[in-house]
């Protein structure tokens, strides 16, 4: 009866797993559940981003002994960028005490988590991406598309194209093609491009590339026929190098392709080789490892053998730096909340309050060693994006070079659209709009 004994052993080990799955919470620890992805088509983004995030948390632990003595802890759960795996990870990790914030780095997973984290009162951070109308803190108290929501990104790209053409009035009669990833993330900006096209008088054609996007011949032939003045690449993962290579194949000039914030990394251009030379992309955080905070991570974390990236040449790459910036934002939110609620393990709702008072002006950013890495952030209870600035980098075949100043998206133009969409969501779900007083009522245990 060997099979029976096997089953018995399996049952025993299953019981063991269940019994040790819940580690006891220690005092004065703040926990980050990381729904990371290190395999699958988007592993390059996942390893870079979560690597940078973990490196920064490590830096805080090693250099400062945590945030005011509160040690930062985390564990990883592999999602492969798939929604149901993300949900499973959420359920698995949420039982851990002292969770500060969720950072799934996936729009699909974030969407599936909105109801759940709102019920559990723990913030959900979707840095540089996410659901645009979650910017409206009146409707989405726990969701933070920090630095740059997709509409601001769109506005920033259109403003940049306008500056290349010599002014916003020169956009009239121009033609822009948006090549977008066939996913919730990719589709998020369809209406805002239509709206800006109407407003500024350019024509826009939006073409979908089915996930994951490793075949784009027909899309680029359509682009060649359309002869647009600019192509906006709203890609993700393998779609980006394929787009650049196919563009060269059909003879479209690469310096007229503008990448969005998820088409802006080394991993997007290096595989395309020479085809990527001259390609420009938007970013909220410049690449490179010359910034003091990145240098400290190299010195304190990597030289001690605790670095997260296996390939050290990726230190200071776009995704790694984004992970570092995300780490700064998360840690500073905890610091803000600690000043109000005490230097201890905070509840998710207290961390939410911290995010809603997260204000880092350029001077504070410089004090954190991140001058020119990112510009500034100014989150409030009803503006969960925090007015991040963008800049543009051009790939010269070896590295990214900043080719613009810090540009402010047109927030005043976008806010009414965001509010309208958020209010429609609130009406559909029967959510009462939150007020500033509601935002100050914090669950402290």
């Amino acid at each position, binding site marked *: 009866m060997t099979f029976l004994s096997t089953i018995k052993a399996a049952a025993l080990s299953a019981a063991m797993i269940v019994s040790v799955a819940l580690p006891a919470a220690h005092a004065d620890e703040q926990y980050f559940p990381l729904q990371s992805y290190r395999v699958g088509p988007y592993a390059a983004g996942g390893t870079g981003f979560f690597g940078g995030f973990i490196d920064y948390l490590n830096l805080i632990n090693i250099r400062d002994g945590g945030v005011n003595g509160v040690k930062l802890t985390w564990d990883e759960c592999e999602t492969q960028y798939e929604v149901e795996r993300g949900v499973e990870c959420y359920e698995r990790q949420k039982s851990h005490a002292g969770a500060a914030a969720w950072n799934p780095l996936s729009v699909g997973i974030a969407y599936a988590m909105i109801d759940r984290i709102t019920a559990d009162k723990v913030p959900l951070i979707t840095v540089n991406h996410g659901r*645009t109308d979650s910017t409206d803190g009146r409707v989405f108290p726990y969701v933070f598309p920090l630095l740059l929501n997709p509409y601001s990104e769109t506005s920033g790209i259109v403003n940049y194209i306008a500056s290349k053409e010599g002014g916003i009035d020169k956009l009239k009669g121009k033609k822009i093609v948006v090549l977008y990833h066939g996913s919730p993330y990719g589709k*998020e900006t369809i209406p805002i491009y239509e709206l800006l096209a109407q407003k500024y008088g350019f024509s826009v054609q939006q073409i979908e590339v089915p996930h994951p996007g490793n075949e784009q011949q027909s899309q680029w032939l359509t682009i060649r026929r359309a002869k647009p003045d600019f192509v906006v690449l709203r890609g993700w993962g393998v779609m980006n190098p394929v787009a650049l290579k196919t563009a060269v194949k059909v003879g479209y000039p690469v310096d007229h392709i503008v990448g969005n914030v998820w088409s802006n990394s080394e991993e997007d251009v290096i595989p395309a080789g020479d085809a990527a030379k001259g390609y420009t992309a938007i970013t909220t955080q410049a690449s490179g490892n010359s910034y003091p905070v990145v240098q400290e991570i190299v010195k304190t974390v990597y030289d001690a053998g605790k670095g997260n990236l296996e390939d050290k040449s990726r230190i200071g790459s776009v995704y790694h730096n984004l992970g570092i910036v995300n780490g700064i934002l998360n840690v500073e939110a905890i610091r803000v909340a600690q000043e109000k609620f005490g230097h201890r393990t905070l509840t998710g709702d207290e961390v939410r309050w911290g995010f809603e008072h997260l204000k880092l002006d350029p001077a504070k950013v410089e004090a954190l060693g991140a001058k020119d890495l990112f510009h500034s952030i100014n989150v409030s209870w009803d503006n969960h994006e925090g007015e991040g600035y963008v800049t543009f980098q051009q790939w010269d075949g070896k590295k990214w070079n900043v080719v613009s100043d810090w540009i402010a998206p047109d927030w005043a133009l976008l806010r009414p659209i965001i509010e309208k969409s958020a209010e429609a969501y609130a009406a559909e779900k029967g959510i009462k709009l939150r007020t500033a007083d509601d935002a100050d009522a914090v669950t402290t245990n």
Partner: protein
Amino acid sequence: MTAISGHFSSAPVLPKWIAPVLLIAFAYGVVPLIGSSYLFEAILLPFLALSLAGVGLNILTGYAGQVSLGSAAFMAAGAFAAYNFNLRVEGLPLIGSIVLAGFVAAAIGIVFGLPSLRLKGFYLAVSTLAAQFFVQWALTKFSWFSNDSASGVIDAPRLSIAGFALDGAVGRYLFALTIVAIVTFLAYRLVSSQTGRNFIAIRDNETAARIIGIPVLKTKLLAFAISSFIIGVAGVIWAFAYLRTVEPDGFDLDRSFQILFIIIIGGLASIRGAFFGAALIVVFPLALSRLGGLLLGDVFDSGVLDMSQRIVLGALIILFLILEPDGLVALWDRIRRRLLFAWQST
């Protein structure tokens, strides 16, 4: 059901309905009291949805012998149809939306079942791929289906039946359990009816079936319709009760393969097989990933762990299929017989 052979005759043979009734009583009476939210949200809800999809596909593939790779498409059709009925038809109760969604999936199933009249085996499997690609394309292309939502992701409506809110994890579990229990019971009745026997006749020998007067054309389309209906309802459970959000990409070809694996591993032409297979497909990777994380989590990063889990899972499935080609159901019956035998000989 396997007949119990002669030398077991002295054992007290329980009526066939006892086991399912006890199981359902346990699922309703005990599980909600002892289960954690992890158990419901991460294990039982996907298990129930995939089991039901497996039951649906088993009627088509296991009983009627028509291979289909379009299961995820029918799930998507069901989920999006239920969402739209719920959104656009004022005053329609949730159950009404679900039943209508089943009919929509069934209609799509019939359309994509038409090639089965001419094609068999692998050729049919390839042609059902058309359903997979077409439905996903249509749902992405026409934003009407997702109520013009910017990103194409829709939020599931609140679940409530006759005024009872079922939004909590337990409520959604009971909601899914009830639907799965009812539909599975109906499917069980179906396969033991004349129609079910017609399905099997067509699977075993189409020409012979035609000669003894079974309307092959009608029966095949009926199999497609019923199967798609059930899979469509499973899609509603997946979207409304489990994920609470729906996007067309969640119903990709991988999902179709997953459901096909469920019935192959669980046991073809067996209602129970779908449940065994779904249990393995849902629970096994989770147990592996927990075990891996526990034993080696400090040594390797999660990416390496995940890759090695896939290798282990794949190897185990291959090994298992070699040792027990008839699926988990056959294995279970064998274990039960041995236990009975051991119990009897003491």
